[in-house]
């Protein structure tokens, strides 16, 4: 039985290439269908068709028909589908109407005019289904991102819809929040049989949950102006060819495992079953750090008089890429802000002989428009830099040349993040401080960022410090990893030695120690193997 049926669906904004064309898709009742693909491949549009937000809230040219549980979205706007299809989008904080969790969850029920007793019961059930009963009296604005997103799902789920649409629900969350949200989604599906249509970038956790996956193509093919939407298939097979697939899946493809594994556990079983003689990876591909650019000795720092960091020592030299890891609230952002001079340390000694620039966590606060190129040029103008090639160089370094004429607000979260990095890095500071650079990034953006960090910084003798939850990023491009816990340094050393044996370990290291990345395994296998990207 099919829950949502797409028949010949096409969509285009006025005066631009079609985003979707001739989509035929059946979402089966009770399944979790994962939609993956690079930014701008039409994932959001595909999902927003399911409850009529496209075309009712978007405008544009819409062809074909989407039927959700027997109701066509042509005749039913989103508000008339609220009882069968729930929708949750990417930014958790912008979807609350009432400043109290419980009342916000009841909002949909009041709109549907449900009887008070039934309403009361439904809200209690949803609070338990998502494990947020203890948050019922709180204000959504005071919650963490993961909690907010679970409350938003509860708000969509209260009407007991048969299907729920999640548009990148975890892309703005830290790993713990993402795990909570996805666990809740899995529980809903297995306990209540709710059909789930979910788009994700962070596939490590989402892929094992899904029953089927759908990979949307790269940007539109030039010839027809439309792109083919392939039909969904088994998750491992669909994702194996995709650059954003989980590291174990790509490792499986490299080593010829069938079907490609989705979890570390499965991959470990497969690795045990085969004997693999590989030369050990080179000790360190990076050179020793050069002249010191930042030297912090025993600094205390915090915001609003509250000390978050206590006695931190950190030296950063030329050619180093330092990754700061640690849970939420461990002081990563505070340390970056202290190094940037935004929150000056209250104690200790901080020397900054090099020039330093800080890329804040929220890229939107840097976006002025009207075009991507203008945004990067603004920085040059403010800094009095008159080298015309510089803007082009940085647009190219972050893979933004194709987007240079677009309005920044039209970009996806990952593209915006890249633009923010370009707009700051174009000043070519000695040290670049990046706060959660891979938040909301798709695979393509991540590749661009990684090559920037690996090549540009280590060859042009600059340095970078990144605060991140993304262990794979740290494994692939950090020369040094510093782990913070409760405002103190817990570990500091080369990536391989800090990451091995820790709970933070990247997937490949857990399957095939001491290798950190798929690329390292590929290099060890020799030139006969080609690393899938």
């Amino acid at each position, binding site marked *: 039985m099919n829950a949502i049926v797409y028949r010949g669906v096409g969509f285009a904004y006025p005066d631009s290439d079609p985003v979707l064309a001739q989509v035929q898709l059946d979402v089966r009742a009770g399944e979790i269908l994962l939609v993956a693909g690079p930014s701008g491949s039409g994932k959001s549009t595909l999902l927003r068709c399911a409850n009529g937000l496209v075309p*009712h*809230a978007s405008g544009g040219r819409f062809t074909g028909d989407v039927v959700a549980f027997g109701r066509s979205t042509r005749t039913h706007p*989103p*508000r*008339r589908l609220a009882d069968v299809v729930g*929708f949750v*989008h990417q*930014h958790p*904080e*912008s*979807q609350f*109407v*009432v*400043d*109290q969790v419980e*009342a916000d969850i*009841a*909002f*949909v*029920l009041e*709109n*549907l*005019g*449900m009887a*008070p007793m039934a*309403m009361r019961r439904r809200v209690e059930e949803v609070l*338990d289904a998502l*494990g947020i*009963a*203890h948050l019922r*009296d*709180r*204000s959504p*604005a*005071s919650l963490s991102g993961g909690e907010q997103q679970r409350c*938003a799902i509860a*708000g*969509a789920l209260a*009407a007991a819809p048969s299907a729920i649409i999640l548009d990148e629900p975890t892309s703005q969350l830290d790993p713990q929040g993402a*795990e*909570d949200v996805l*666990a809740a989604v899995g529980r809903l599906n297995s306990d209540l049989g709710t059909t789930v249509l979910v788009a994700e970038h962070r596939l490590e956790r989402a892929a094992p949950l899904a029953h089927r996956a759908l990979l949307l193509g790269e940007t539109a093919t030039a010839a027809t102006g439309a792109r083919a939407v392939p039909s969904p298939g088994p998750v491992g097979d669909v994702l194996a060819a995709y650059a954003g697939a989980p590291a174990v899946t790509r490792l499986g493809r490299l080593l010829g495992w069938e079907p490609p594994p989705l979890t570390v556990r499965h991959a470990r079983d497969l690795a045990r079953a085969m004997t693999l003689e590989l030369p050990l990876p080179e000790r360190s591909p990076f050179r020793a750090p050069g002249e010191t650019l930042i030297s912090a000795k025993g600094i205390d720092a915090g915001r609003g008089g509250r000390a978050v960091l206590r006695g931190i020592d950190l030296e950063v030299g030329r050619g180093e890429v330092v990754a700061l890891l640690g849970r939420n609230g461990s002081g990563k952002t505070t340390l970056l802000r202290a190094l940037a*001079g935004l929150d000056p340390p209250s104690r200790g000694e901080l020397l900054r002989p090099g*020039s330093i620039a*800080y890329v*804040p966590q*929220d890229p*939107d*606060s*840097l*976006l*002025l*428009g009207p075009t991507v190129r203008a945004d990067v040029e*603004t*920085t040059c103008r*403010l*800094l009095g830099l008159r080298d015309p090639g510089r803007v082009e160089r940085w647009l190219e370094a972050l893979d933004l040349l194709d987007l240079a004429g677009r309005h920044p607000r039209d970009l996806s979260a990952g593209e915006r993040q890249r633009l923010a990095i370009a*707009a*700051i890095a174009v*000043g070519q500071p000695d040290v670049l401080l990046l706060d959660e650079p891979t938040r909301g990034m798709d695979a393509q953006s991540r590749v661009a960022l990684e090559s920037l960090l690996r090549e540009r910084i280590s060859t042009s003798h600059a340095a970078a410090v990144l605060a991140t939850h993304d262990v794979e990023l740290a494994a692939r491009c950090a020369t040094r990893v510093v782990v913070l816990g409760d405002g103190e340094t817990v570990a500091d050393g080369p990536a391989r030695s800090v990451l091995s044996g820790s709970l933070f370990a990247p997937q490949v290291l857990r399957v095939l120690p001491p290798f950190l990345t798929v690329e390292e395994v590929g290099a060890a296998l020799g030139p006969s193997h080609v690393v899938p990207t």
Partner: protein
Amino acid sequence: MTTAQPLHAVAWLVWAVAAAASLELAPSPLYVALVVAVAVVVVSVHGRDTAVARTSFSVLLVFGVLFAGVRILLTSLTTHAGDHVLFTLPHVDLPRLLGGFRMGGTVELPVLLQASAEAFVVVGVMAVFGAFNAVVSHHELVQSAPRAFYEVGLVVTVAVAFVPSTLATVHRVGEADLARTGGRVVRRGRLLRRALPVLESGLERSLALAESMDSRGFGHAGTSTTDRVSGSLLLMALVGLAGAFVALVGRAGGLAVAMGLAGSASLAAAVTVASRRAERVRYRPRRMKREDFVVSGVCLLAPCGLALLALGRDASLVWSASPLRLPALNLLAVLALAFLVAPALCRARQQSPSLSGPADAATALVA
């Protein structure tokens, strides 16, 4: 911290009205200071843990102080009376067309003090309004309002919720602007550089919110004829009342009365028409409890007591700077104002220990 409140939103509304009325009845600086102190106490005891509540008191107080400052400045520049000249400024005489009064010139002490006392009342009103916003649940207030005001109320609630998040965005954008130049301050074009991202982020947020509301069935029932009728009646009421206000300012008494009556009549008609329609279902509507009625009643004693004192020609209620003297204090008036502290004496509602707490921790561990 929770958003729970010991008192009903309507009780808070009564408190705010009583406090504002007391300010009007007893505008002497000493009494105004007392009311401001009461507002501070109420906020510190019952301030809710929401972004709006945390910012509203301080933001509105700052607005009040700024407004008061402007008022003092303008009054002392344009009004000249008495001989206690503090200092003399260069002056210009405005042409007759613009009122023909003198800007600048002598600044007299009584004028300055009188203006300050009047401006302090404005600060007091803003403090009361800020405290009201810090303690009341706007959602509860909207839920208690007649059906006709539901949509309008919801729009206002959502708009109010945008204020703190916009302030946070302003702060973030300012930091990002500094980050762009590596900490160097570039003043040229700074306002535009900082305003654009704030506006665009606000626009994006409102679109997302509109979509979220649409996806959650807002306006599910569609608009009926009664809605349209009550909507147009409401619009007429708004025009009528606004016209009455303009007429009042323009000192056209008769017209003001006529427009005011017409406005009130269509307002009443709008409420009646809208309420005839099937009642909007409300989730866990909060009813006024005995405690709420008691507190409301006690609060109302304050303006009533002051009104009695005013009838008895109590000279301490209103202070005037000429002849120059210290403001007097009547203990009876202080006693009347003390009734306004009543809400602060209610205990905060104890949250029942959550049964699901340990269970949640257990599932989190398993996960």
